[in-house]
């Protein structure tokens, strides 16, 4: 097993002061109690706002869908946090702007390298979302984009938290963005990633004993700060990633070290949000994880709501922030075990094909 993390300063207190989410649930208006979006196709597409209401149409006209998703959710988070312009913007994305990449690549091939419109090429650059947000808000501070597969969002989060620790910024906008396209779905299908026929019922996601997940997408941004205000949702304590654990013992070691560092005991955890994806080849790992936890801990799921995508953990952080803030556990996360109330500490555990594993710990303010 390779255990790797860029160690965080757990004594640093960091608050989530604003959130913005465009996801396959209707979350863009800040609603927390949402209607579960059941599907008969193996793709959960985002429910998107009318972008004209959030982005200046002149700025938005050249933006492809994922850029609009990223920019709009970032603007929603800033508005929610009462900040006009953040000091820094850090984004994580597994695949970047796929539609623009596909468009330019297709035009190269079909037009035999002639008559090429440069706009999709420019927008295929991975840092387009971070820089478009900066352009709109005239944010001249630190601007970074991480593109490291299933831990892109975790990388962005670690960097954002370190900026606050260094006192290089008072408010940092951190986000995770990924889009699904029909071409990307076709290609990834050939790698056996997706279910052939998902069950229609919302529990069929877990009940079906078959390989593959449901594809998803989303854009979620958070406004982080060391300063608490009346809008603060909760605290982010720590983030950890590790790769290729050999067995349950390795996972336990990582979880123990992670919690010890944060001075949190297993018994202190009230809720674990688990990245179970419906893929029977990899979901048993979560059963091992659940067995590590105490009876006090409830377990809930999120990927049947957002689908499987490389920055899906950002959706879990969003849900955790809402739960910490409202102390309401939505029935849609299909929680079981524990007391299902008095949520002080939430642990998110996500893994991707048993290669990339991540832990994110949040607590109440």
């Amino acid at each position: 097993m390779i255990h790797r993390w860029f160690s965080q300063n757990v004594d640093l207190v960091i608050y989530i002061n604003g959130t913005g989410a465009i996801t396959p649930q209707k979350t863009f208006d800040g609603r927390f109690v949402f209607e579960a979006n059941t599907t008969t196709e193996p793709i959960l597409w985002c429910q998107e706002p009318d972008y004209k209401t959030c982005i200046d149409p002149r700025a938005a006209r050249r933006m492809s869908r994922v850029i609009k998703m990223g920019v709009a959710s970032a603007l929603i988070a800033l508005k929610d946090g009462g900040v006009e312009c953040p000091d820094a913007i850090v984004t994580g994305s597994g695949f970047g702007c796929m539609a623009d990449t596909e468009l330019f690549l297709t035009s190269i091939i079909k037009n035999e390298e002639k008559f090429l419109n440069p706009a999709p090429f420019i927008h295929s650059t991975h840092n387009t979302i971070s820089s478009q947000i900066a352009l709109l808000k005239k944010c001249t501070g630190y601007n970074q984009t991480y593109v490291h597969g299933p831990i892109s969002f975790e990388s962005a989060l670690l960097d954002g938290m370190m900026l606050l620790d260094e006192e290089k910024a008072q408010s940092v906008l951190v986000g995770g963005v990924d889009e699904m396209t029909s071409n990307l779905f076709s290609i990834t299908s050939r790698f056996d990633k997706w279910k052939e026929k998902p069950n229609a019922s919302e529990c069929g996601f877990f009940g079906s004993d078959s390989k593959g997940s449901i594809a998803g997408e989303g854009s979620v941004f958070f406004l982080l700060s060391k300063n608490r205000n009346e809008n603060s949702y909760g605290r982010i304590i720590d983030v950890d990633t590790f790769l290729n654990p050999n067995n349950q013992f390795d996972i336990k070691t990582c979880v123990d070290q992670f919690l010890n560092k944060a001075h949190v005991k297993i018994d202190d955890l009230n809720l674990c949000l688990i990245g179970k994806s419906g893929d029977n080849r990899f979901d048993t790992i979560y059963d091992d994880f659940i067995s590590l936890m105490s009876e006090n801990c409830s377990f809930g799921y999120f990927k049947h709501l957002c689908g499987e995508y490389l920055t899906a953990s950002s959706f879990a952080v969003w849900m955790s922030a809402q739960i910490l803030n409202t102390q309401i556990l939505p029935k849609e996360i299909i929680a079981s075990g524990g007391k299902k109330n008095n949520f002080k500490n939430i642990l998110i555990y996500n893994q991707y094909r048993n290669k990339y594993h991540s832990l994110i710990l949040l607590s109440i303010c």
Partner: protein
Amino acid sequence: MENLIAKLKVQIIEELSLEDLTPEDIQDDEPLFGEGLGLDSIDALSLVVVLDREYGIQIDDPEQGKDILYSIKTIAQYITDNK
């Protein structure tokens, strides 16, 4: 020339994703860049592609391009003169 102007307006709206505009919204003499329609340098490149693809006209010199792309009318005139 009038037909060409009308066609250009439709092509520009489509190529530059000016979704909120109709051809009637674009004045023939109105500056396309800076003030007026407010297009930028990336739009200029996209327009150059349109001229090449649709009319076989290539613009390699950016300075010359500024004059040609000034307004719908100047574009139409250049196409007519160089067909």
